[in-house]
């Protein structure tokens, strides 16, 4: 059994009367891509926000390896090796692609930040940034301001920033949103390549991509998990087909 | 003791009247208006000038309110309307410039002296409370006006269609606009109302607190503290905070006169430690 890196147990989040996430449990193991699917409003993005520490859970626990990180802030969890991408592109528009990634690498430096030396003269960070850009095929665009990158390139930059910090867990929130077919193929290949060394959570609506990548699938609706298991098992699950796959008219066998 | 309590309540209610405009303008229009205190000052000076020329405060009040509302509409149309899409920094600066302009215009028109405004004869009596104590009727009048206006604000916002439109414009301007609401008009109305409220507060306060150049700035800072403690955009928060500050300030002056000015800020610091978004604010 693969090493479980991030585990959520009976996680819930309430907003006043609304229960956005209701008793969700899942485990992310190294070498596995765990996809979470469900209709809009199912609570998937809230789940990512809970796992990344941006939102505090109303009840339940989150464990990073053996440590209870339920009460940890977003920056502390990120430093613990959990990186996320955002559904709506959330890069630094005025900075170059390189600087975006370099900052991501710098975040994991630890200790007191340097006050004197030019930040570009820290070889470890520059190397990590360039490697992340290379992995996402953005090496040629390193010096370009992020705001002038194409949409597909910006989505790729999101992933590059997540990689630059050398995380062990990746939370990918709809990485393919708004992408054209060629870009999609590129990102799918990229994510597949990342599987071996990371534990990956993938939120996506593109069912082709999901079934091409996922090892495990969790299906959510109305904040609850309605099915969870291997990709194959979920595909054949009648209830899931009715709620989500069938209703959407997607995917034949 | 009873006198102090009544004074605290009256002061708090008056502060609420001014602060309500500030928090509404910010809550509904997203504009931080440093010149809000200036409108209070303008109200007080208007009370002085109009009461002298018209003969009584009673006549001065309606005239002053109309003038203030008109001023509010003009300022909104000319300047504030250009600030909606701008960041807070520019709003702060532009309204800071407005403060300078208002101060100097007042200085040119009415001078820099301190003035007093006589209490209207009808309200100048004192109401006996106990054998030895009595309380000025005028102060009760001030409290009464503030309570009446607070109730009117609550009723308008919660129970009328106009209020519903205003609240819709506040929570989701684009949606409200696409549904046919005239945002521009609502903004102008809210701003003019806020200005009129501040000016009215200045006018009715004038007989008890005297009219002096720095009064606008002084009340502005307190209003900021009220809005911070109460939570931006929350009228209920503003009321609670204003009353809290009324007590804090009044009793502070009695108990530790030299440090009374600081007491209010310590209160704010305390609230911030536990609730960075204010007592009733949405973070």
């Amino acid at each position: 059994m693969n090493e479980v890196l991030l585990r959520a147990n009976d996680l819930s989040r309430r907003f006043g009367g609304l229960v956005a996430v209701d008793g969700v449990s899942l485990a992310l193991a190294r070498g596995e891509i765990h996809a979470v699917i469900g209709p809009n409003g199912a609570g998937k993005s809230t789940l990512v926000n809970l796992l990344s520490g941006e939102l505090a859970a109303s009840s339940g626990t989150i464990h990073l390896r053996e440590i209870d990180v339920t009460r940890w802030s977003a920056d502390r969890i990120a430093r613990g090796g959990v990186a996320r991408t955002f559904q709506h592109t959330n890069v630094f528009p005025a900075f170059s692609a390189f600087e975006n990634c370099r900052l991501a690498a710098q975040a994991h430096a630890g200790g007191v930040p340097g006050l004197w030396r030019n930040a570009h003269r820290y070889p470890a960070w520059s190397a990590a940034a360039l490697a992340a850009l290379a992995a996402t095929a953005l090496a040629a665009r390193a010096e370009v301001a992020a705001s002038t990158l194409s949409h597909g390139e910006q989505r790729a930059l999101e992933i590059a920033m997540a990689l630059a910090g050398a995380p062990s867990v990746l939370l990918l929130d709809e990485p393919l949103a708004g992408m054209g077919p060629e870009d999609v193929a590129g990102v799918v290949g990229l994510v597949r390549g990342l599987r071996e060394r990371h534990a990956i959570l993938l939120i996506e609506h593109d069912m082709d991509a999901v079934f091409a990548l996922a090892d495990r699938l969790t299906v959510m609706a109305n904040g609850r998990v309605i099915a969870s298991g291997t990709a194959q098992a979920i595909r054949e699950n009648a209830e899931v087909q009715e709620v989500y796959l069938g209703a959407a008219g997607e995917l034949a066998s | 003791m009873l006198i102090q309590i009544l004074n605290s309540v009256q002061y708090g209610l008056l502060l609420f009247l001014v602060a309500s405009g500030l928090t509404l303008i910010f809550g509904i229009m997203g504009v931080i208006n440093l010149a809000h205190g200036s409108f209070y000052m303008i109200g007080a000076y208007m009370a002085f000038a109009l009461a002298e020329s018209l003969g009584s405060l009673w006549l001065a009040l309606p005239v002053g309110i109309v003038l203030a509302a008109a001023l509010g509409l003009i300022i909104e149309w000319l300047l504030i309307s250009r600030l909606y899409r701008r960041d807070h920094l520019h709003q702060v600066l532009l309204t800071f410039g407005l403060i300078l302009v208002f101060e100097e215009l007042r200085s040119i028109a009415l001078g820099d002296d301190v003035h007093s405004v006589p209490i209207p004869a009808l309200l100048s009596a004192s109401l006996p409370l106990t054998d030895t104590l009595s309380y000025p009727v005028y102060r009760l009048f001030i409290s009464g006006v503030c309570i009446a206006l607070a109730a009117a604000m609550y009723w308008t916002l919660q129970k009328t269609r106009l209020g519903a439109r205003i609240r819709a414009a506040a929570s989701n301007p684009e949606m409200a606009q696409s549904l046919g609401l005239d945002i521009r008009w609502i903004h102008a109305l809210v701003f003019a109302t806020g200005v009129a409220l501040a000016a009215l507060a200045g006018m009715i306060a004038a007989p008890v607190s005297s009219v002096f150049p720095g009064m606008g700035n002084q009340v502005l800072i307190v209003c900021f503290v009220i809005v911070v403690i109460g939570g931006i955009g929350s009228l209920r928060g503003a009321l609670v905070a204003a009353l809290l500050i009324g007590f804090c300030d009044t009793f502070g002056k009695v108990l530790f006169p030299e440090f009374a000015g600081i007491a209010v800020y310590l209160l704010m610091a305390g609230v911030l430690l536990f609730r960075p978004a204010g007592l009733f604010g949405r973070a």
Partner: protein
Amino acid sequence: MSTRRRIVLLGGALVLLALFPLLAEKFYLQLVTRIMVLSIFTLSLDLLVGYTGMVSLGHAAYFGIAAYVLALVAPADVGANVWLTLPVALLASALAALVIGSLVVRTAGVYFIMVTLAFAQMIYYFFHDTRVAGGSDGIYVNVRPQTFIPGIDLGDDLHFYYVALMLMVGVFALLATLLRSPFGRALQGIKANERRMRSLGFATLRYKLAAFVIAGTLAGLAGYLAAAREGYVNPEMLAWHQSGTVLMMLILGGMGTLVGAVLGTFAYVLLQEVFSDITRHWQLLMGTFIIVAVLVFPQGLAGLAQQWRRRRARLEDASGE
């Protein structure tokens, strides 16, 4: 603008400032000294507002605290020891910034503006209402601090001018270095997108607090120099009017650039002199100017220069075809 061109321009300005005393008469010497001291104040605010995105409306508090420390510890008839009093004054400002900073750094946006203003007012009332430091009358600093370095006599306006110039350049260079460092880059990231910085793993509150304290300390340096130069300290140095004015100087020059902070200070003070000559009610002109400036050139002078350069570049492109 290329780095080379920028260095040449800055160097030229420096030379101009260095030679200025040889040409100028006493009044202008004192005026430019005052401007340079204020520039340090504006530069300190630039770190906070222009680079970290924290709009403080209470920065004058740290300016005034250091000024008051000097006034309170200065002997009545002889110059204070600058090597003892300056560090103490800076420490006072830094501590105040640390205490207030820890309370306000959790807030953001409008709240932050309002609480920084309110806390500065608290300090203002402390100095204004109590007799601890002369109340609204203020205190005099009869003799300027001594450096005990032969040849540098702060009592001499010319010497003071050059000391102020060196310190201004020093603060400028310090901030330039700081902003290129990992710490400085993180601050700029926080201004650009604080949420993203947190999700990357930066403990943004600590960075913001550090920026607040550094800015407060540098403001203290300006306050100490101002007190030494004027020879007089009063609560108005802490008033929110002062905080608003320094913010205006920053915007006028163009925040987000260090040069802009200095330019804005020069422009503002010179404008103030011009307006004061025209009328006693110069604030009316200044207020109107501020309003117009915000509406018409919100990027400040530095922004105007940028726009002008871009337009020239576009014209050159067009004519080149």
